[in-house]
């Protein structure tokens, strides 16, 4: 106590000075509108700078959360986009209400192989998140594969970088169907077979999913035609294509669930082989 008192006595002049200075600043603030607004401006400037710094810092730590939010938002938008893909191809479809039995879930890729001939991915969503076998996996710019096996929290996916996987595709400008498969070398070089020769096509035409499988909805853009060959004897084109999305470099994917796949499978079984 004595020491505090001594310090107060020792520094009485600076203390007195600053107290009086504060008082006169208060007077200044109260008596002059100009100074009041100027002080207000300066304090606003300082508080804004401080706020800006803290905002940037807190923003940085929220990035992950924001990322997840964006992913969820993208998921919802992806569902709408998939729905609208089909509408654009059939303008009359707007007049009649069509069912769209697909639902989208977001997931992260945690393992992705692309150097083998049969490649697989593992994603961080599993049975607990509603992932089931044979669901389709896509990204924002193309398709990735089909779910093969599901554990509680994870699922393995047959990559389209797998020569066993054949995807039903069509041209965007006319409904000629074909089958997309990997050539087995470069991860974006694919080939399309079984497109009939009477369908006119050019280099640069866009390929989209055909909607003839229960996995993928109609109209997901996949890639562009880089080269094609007329095969006179068989009557089909052999087309080289380049994908929009490099399947070896994906991180965020969407899993598409077809809500009516069981119905389709029942009908499929009844078909004569």
């Amino acid at each position, binding site marked *: 106590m004595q020491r505090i008192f001594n310090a107060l006595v020792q520094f009485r002049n*600076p203390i007195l000075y600053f107290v009086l200075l504060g008082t*006169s*600043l208060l*007077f*200044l603030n109260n008596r*002059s509108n*100009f*100074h009041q607004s100027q002080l207000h401006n300066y304090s606003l400037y300082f508080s804004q700078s401080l706020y800006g710094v803290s905002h940037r810092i807190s923003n940085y730590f929220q990035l992950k959360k924001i990322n997840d939010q964006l992913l969820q938002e993208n998921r919802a938008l992806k569902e709408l986009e998939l729905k609208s893909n089909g509408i654009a191809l059939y303008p009359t479809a707007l007049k009649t209400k069509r069912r769209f039995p697909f639902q989208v879930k977001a997931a992260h890729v945690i393992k992705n192989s692309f150097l083998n001939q049969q490649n697989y991915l593992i994603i961080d969503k599993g049975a607990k998140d509603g992932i089931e076998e044979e669901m389709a996996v896509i990204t924002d710019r193309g398709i990735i594969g089909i779910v093969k096996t599901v554990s509680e929290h994870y699922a393995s996916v047959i990559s389209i970088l797998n020569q066993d996987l054949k995807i039903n595709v069509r041209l965007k400008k006319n409904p000629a169907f074909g089958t997309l498969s990997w050539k087995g070398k470069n991860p974006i070089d694919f080939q399309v077979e079984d497109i009939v020769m009477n369908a006119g096509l050019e280099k640069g035409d866009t390929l989209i999913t055909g909607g003839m499988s229960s996995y993928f909805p109609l109209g997901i853009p996949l890639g562009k035609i880089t080269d094609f060959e007329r095969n006179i004897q068989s009557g089909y084109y052999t087309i080289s294509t380049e994908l929009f999305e490099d399947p070896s470099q994906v991180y965020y994917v969407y899993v598409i669930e077809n809500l009516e796949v069981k119905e389709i499978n029942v009908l499929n079984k009844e078909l004569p082989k």
Partner: protein
Amino acid sequence: MNRDTLALYSIFLLLVLLQVMLFNNLYLFGFINPMVYLFFIVVYRFENDQTLFILLSFLLGFAIDFLSQSGGAHTIATLTIAFLRPIIIRSAFGVTSEIPSSFQNDSRILSKTAFLALLIGVHHLIYYSIVFFNWNAFYLILKNTLLTSVFSLILIALVSSLYKKLNDS
């Protein structure tokens, strides 16, 4: 209350009245109002109590502000200059403020002028900085500070020589 203290308070009152009634209405060249009340900061004896001095300077500035309807610039400038006076004395005379040597008895004219110029310059700089209170008015602040300082310096030097003569006689 001894004679010195009485003289000090009389000077205080006289300076306030002079400043408010005469010098604040001078407007030399349209804008220069010399601040003669700073003579109080000069005349307060170096060896007297510094705490009382700060308080009196605050009251002086406040009185000027109050009577000339200004915001608070005189108060802040005068208060600050009173607080800084020991430093200014040291840099002008090269002695500590505790050594009893009043400005009136010091014969070195250069030190006296340096002390006055520093005191007035710093005071005016603070005063005009607060009056304009804007970075963009930097040159205006400097111009006002320099020109007003010159006239304040002349007037305060005159007043102090007059005071010395009165004291001696």
